[in-house]
């Protein structure tokens, strides 16, 4: 495994993410997370049309503060996340330009519009759930999981059960042959 190989062992990557979390805790006093940034992005868009709304809406007022400004550390993390992924893909010539995934195509056809609408709706539902729970796969799953948080392991279990149920509802047992 080198910087140029396409795929690293998932165990090695897991160790890498674990060590990365040591670094953010130690140097920034922060835990890895991503989903709060979506609130900051929608807040930035809101600020363009109605800046006072960021102060009157209780959720924006709670999430966007002096200590966690609109463009906070996590905003920059999410900004460079695709750059890091692009760099990894470029080094290994491993880009994956994908409009409609194979499994989706098998079940719902090759329409790009249909897939785009599903991805959009999936995104809406995903973040609604993440904000209700207070975190996502990184903030709850990894950061909270490694701190042995009761909230995070509950979230992890709930999202896994629901993800499995939804995947089987969408693609069925037959879908397992087409992943």
């Amino acid at each position: 495994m080198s910087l140029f190989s396409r795929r690293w062992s998932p165990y090695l990557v897991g160790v890498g993410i674990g060590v990365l979390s040591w670094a953010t805790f130690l140097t920034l006093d922060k835990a890895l997370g991503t989903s709060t940034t979506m609130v900051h992005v929608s807040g930035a868009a809101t600020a363009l049309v109605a800046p006072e709304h960021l102060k009157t809406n209780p959720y924006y007022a709670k999430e966007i503060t002096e200590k966690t400004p609109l463009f906070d550390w996590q905003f920059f993390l999410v900004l460079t996340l695709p750059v890091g992924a692009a760099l990894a893909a470029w080094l290994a010539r491993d880009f994956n330009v994908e409009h409609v995934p194979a499994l989706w195509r098998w079940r719902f056809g090759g329409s790009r519009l249909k897939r785009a609408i599903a991805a959009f709706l999936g995104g809406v539902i995903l973040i609604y759930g993440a904000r209700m729970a207070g975190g996502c796969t990184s903030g709850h799953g990894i950061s909270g999981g490694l701190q042995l948080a009761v909230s995070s392991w509950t979230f992890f279990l709930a999202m896994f059960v629901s993800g499995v149920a939804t995947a089987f509802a969408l693609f069925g047992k037959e879908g397992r042959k087409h992943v």
Partner: protein
Amino acid sequence: MFDTYPMIVGGVLTGLVFGFLLQKAHVTRYSVILGQFLFTDFTVLKVMLTAIVTGGIGIYAMYGIGWIPHLQIKTAAMAAVTLGGLIFGVGMALLGYCPGTDVAAAGEGSRHALYGFLGMVVGAALYSETMPYFKDTLLKAFDYGKISFADVTHLSPWIFIAGLAMLSAGIFLLIERWEKRVQFRRGIA
């Protein structure tokens, strides 16, 4: 409006490394995420459990010797965490990514991940506008505070970390054995 300079540099570097690692494990792939939910690919579980065990050892060690002043545990508002998790799972199976892997997938070329990102921003706006209606009810129901399993049981966190490490090792052994069997069967088919 902007964080301090060191925090911005920290965020930039963390994002670069995190994105790089996610791509190298291919958890930026729709097929890998759906493969986990359909139990044909266990990459997601391998990455997450290894990260949790590795992270836990370092964080609790540094917390123990005082290098880390406090933990960052999220409140156990059980109703919101459970319902939020159930909603999140539906979204993740439909989109095929979670928030971090969606953004990383866009970086390695996934086009539908871009629509997923738009959806996530709209979802955040929708949540901000609707949460005032349930912030004093659902979000506060069964809230046990910022507790860990060590707090609840009054046991050492190291017992849980050791248990988790052994459990993960057991799960990994089973998965590896299963993967070999599938490969063998494909070989003779």
